[in-house]
């Protein structure tokens, strides 16, 4: 098959999603391990047009009553007016901007100053008119979600890129950015940022704990929690052998925290045997043993496929920890997803936990940030650790505001991500293929794990194929669809839905999945040998 390989390195997508940057060419280099397996490295040049348009500012000049009649000019801040949306010249491309003195051109995907003459000037510009004609030869609506990309040969393509690599790729929406712009700020190192304080109080309350601490990442949140619980030398933590803390935190607990760990076998549902836990707890009188200081649980369990841990098991684990006199930490990076899946409040899930880490930068869609939640005393120590690790930020309210907005506007819609994930899984099930399989009942939240048979296709090949578009495919589907996914093992491909994945994206992704699986099913024996 004649395959045109598109490797969507992040930069190829972004110019269409974000605003313009200075004109020029962005050359995107090879994508290295974005995870195990990763996408295929290739060189792609993306052509980005134009810089930012804007009107000239007028300066204030002293009023002089002189024969020369010097004019007094005021600096204006023209606000966007809704009545403009009804004007013929503005229809099909004009919408409100991220602040009330800005407008947005959906055709050029650009923020403009909200002055009527500015907007008219923009609409008459050659580039705008060319784009308006190209993107859709017929009048509105402008199609959303398509990216215009130019390949190595200089050919332009209109692609639908569905980025399911992770829910960390979420971009802040215009409304979220508005909230960030309007946030009141202060220096959080002096504990004077009111927006950060509001976020911390809000999340503490949500989880019914005493206090919370805003930190730059989930990795730091977990690291801080482990180190705070294991404040003394010679500590040991019991942690699931498939957990993020054990596998994906660069061994930070040991490297940075000087804390040893003991793994316990994770079961397919993300839990572990409580009896086995008892057996792992150390004898404090044995000088050969470190001191067991903490037990960690991950909910939802990402590696197990985003599984929400059963509530009764969490309660039993909590009871066991109480009995053993050991604290319990919950890596709740995607806790809100678990809460939606279980139909219970996040506070209820972590009731028995002494500390929790929660991420704002994943499905909740904030650009960065996570929280540590615990008692007041715990958070005081955690704050100290945050500083020494280098996580003490200054006017961080600007990003905390994004977190607050996310809790209000994105958290309530998380069930859509789960619905979308199920739709993707369903589409694979419907093919009844032996090449690529998925268990629908394993899809609890926004994660789908596809299993490859390793005969016709392995995980790496599947990711490559999903990120490519062939001529036959684009003829049959009447659309050029790129699905970005991650190979998390030799045979498992992970898809993660999130708030930037719209219904149209899901529809296209399911069509693509079915098409590709169909291809594998129809593969002749000879091709097996070639492809693997």
């Amino acid at each position, binding site marked *: 098959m004649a395959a045109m390989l598109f490797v969507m390195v992040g930069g190829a997508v972004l110019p269409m999603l974000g605003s313009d940057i200075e004109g020029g060419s962005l050359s995107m280099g090879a994508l290295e391990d974005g995870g195990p397996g990763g996408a295929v490295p290739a060189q792609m040049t993306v052509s980005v047009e134009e810089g930012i348009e804007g009107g000239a500012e007028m300066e204030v000049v002293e009023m002089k009553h002189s024969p020369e009649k010097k004019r007094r000019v005021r600096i204006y801040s023209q606000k966007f007016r809704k009545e403009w949306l009804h004007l013929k010249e503005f229809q099909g491309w004009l919408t409100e901007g991220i602040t009330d003195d800005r407008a947005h051109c959906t055709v050029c995907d650009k923020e403009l100053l909200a002055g009527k003459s500015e907007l008219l000037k923009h609409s008459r510009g050659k580039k705008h008119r060319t784009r308006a004609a190209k993107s859709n030869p017929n009048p509105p609506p402008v199609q959303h979600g398509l990216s215009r990309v130019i390949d190595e040969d200089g050919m332009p393509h209109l692609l639908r890129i569905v980025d399911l690599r*992770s829910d*960390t790729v979420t971009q802040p929406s215009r409304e979220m950015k508005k909230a960030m712009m309007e946030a009141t700020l202060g220096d959080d190192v002096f504990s004077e940022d009111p927006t950060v304080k509001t976020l911390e109080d809000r999340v503490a309350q949500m989880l019914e704990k005493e206090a919370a601490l805003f930190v730059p990442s989930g990795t730091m949140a977990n690291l801080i929690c482990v180190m705070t619980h294991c404040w003394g030398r010679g500590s040991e933590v019991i942690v699931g052998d498939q957990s993020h803390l054990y596998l994906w935190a660069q061994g930070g607990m040991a490297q*940075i925290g000087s804390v040893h760990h003991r793994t316990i076998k994770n079961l397919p549902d993300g839990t572990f045997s409580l009896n086995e836990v008892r057996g792992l707890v150390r004898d404090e009188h044995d000088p050969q043993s470190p001191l067991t200081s903490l037990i960690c649980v991950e909910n939802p369990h990402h590696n197990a496929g985003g599984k929400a841990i059963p509530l009764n098991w969490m309660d039993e684990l909590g009871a066991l920890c109480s009995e053993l006199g050991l604290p319990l930490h919950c890596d709740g990076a995607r806790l809100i997803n678990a809460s939606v899946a279980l139909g219970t409040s996040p506070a209820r899930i972590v009731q028995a936990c002494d500390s929790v880490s929660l991420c704002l930068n994943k499905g909740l869609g904030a650009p*960065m940030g996570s929280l540590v939640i615990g008692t007041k005393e715990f958070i005081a120590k955690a704050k100290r650790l945050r500083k020494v*690790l280098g996580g003490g930020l200054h006017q961080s309210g*600007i990003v905390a505001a994004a977190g607050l907005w996310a809790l209000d506007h994105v958290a309530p819609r998380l069930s859509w991500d789960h619905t979308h994930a199920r739709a993707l899984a369903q589409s694979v099930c419907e093919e009844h293929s032996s090449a690529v399989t998925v268990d629908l009942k394993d899809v609890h939240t926004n994660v789908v794990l596809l299993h490859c048979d390793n005969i016709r296709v392995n995980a790496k090949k599947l990711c490559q194929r999903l990120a490519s578009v062939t001529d036959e495919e684009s003829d049959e589907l009447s659309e050029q669809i790129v699905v970005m996914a991650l190979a998390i093992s030799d045979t498992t491909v992970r898809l993660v839905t999130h708030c930037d994945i719209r219904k149209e994206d899901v529809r296209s992704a399911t069509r693509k999945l079915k098409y590709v699986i169909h291809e594998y099913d129809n593969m002749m024996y000879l091709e097996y040998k070639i492809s693997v």
Partner: protein
Amino acid sequence: MADLAGETMNGGGGGGGEIKVGVGGKTRVGEEGGVGVGAKIRVGEEGRVGVGGKTRVVDLRSDTLTYPSLGMKTAMMEAILGDDVLGEDPTVNALQERVARLLGKESAAFLPSGTMCNLIAVLLHCDRRGGEVLVGDNCHIYRWEQGGIAQFGGVHSKSLKTHPDGTFSLTELRQAVRADNIHFPRPSLVCVENTHNMEGGKVLPLSWLDELSVTCRELGLPLHMDGARLLNASVSLGVSPERIVRDFDSVTICLSKGLGAPVGSVLVSSAAFIERAKRLRKGLGGGMRQSGVLAAAGLYALQHIYPRLSEDHKHVQIIAKAVNECVGGAVTCDPSGAHTNILMLTCDPARITPAQFCTRMEKVGEGEEAALGERVSCRLISINDTTVRLVTYKDISLDDVEALVKKLVYVIKGIA
């Protein structure tokens, strides 16, 4: 009562803030504080707003209090973003390239804080067991980073006596770099701080830096510069940042201080070093996602705020001169010792302690409003039992400086 329109900006400090007011018509809020018809109003600690009669708060505790302007925030919101852990945030990449070029180095990494930059630099230079870093005894890494290099890196510090000009003796350095002996840790790195914060924002002499680098080359030791306020040094010397750090293997530079960005610092070095730095950044928990939103502020700062840093230095000189003119006062300073945007005031503890002085400066005393023509509250920091520090930055206007000076002179003259 004036009509309130426009934005509220928190000018830092408890309850402090500023509201730009336009009476009728439209007001545009600019970086300097906005222009419009109407009075500039300061929200005092009581939090009440109105025209006239309220307190002007001049917060000089640190240049970390810099507030992102509207222009900066707009740049942040318009930035193109991506997942920086995957290396896909073009704004972060652009900032890193820009700063690396500015310092004449191969590569750079955007980090959440200067503390993390220094921590990573030391841990990477001293990545074998039993290492030792040679540092000035009054530097930030030694005094103000919670001993992180020991706590996380197992790195020992050998402190060298800091001179008032921020340097240390190269003879002492040579003596401190001891021969290989089973009793001694292995010297692995030498660190300097430029500008030197605790010595009053002093700019290290270029000639000393050159001698230091020759010495370290002879001793086979790498050099790291904590250049949190490097650009202040560059502006003060009239020398490019590249020249200052020419012989340094790694450099920390902060965007969140006088440069005015809300968050962030950059570690600069060779490509290989930065690759390792990014790895350690992830392990420490500094791997951020769409951090281009913060990097955009850094880019804006380099373009718009960096060119005006000398204003902050001028403001310090105005303040220093005024204090100096209070002959026989309980509080004195040395204007020639104020190279950049930091001023150290020395209190005669027999007459007034630094803590008392700070409290006095913050309070609006009896009769003061009448004497000064307005209510002024100044926030300073007491560093030790004889010294008070003040730091100027872009949000401290000339008006604020003049009010501060009036208050300083008034208070100093009022001390027995």
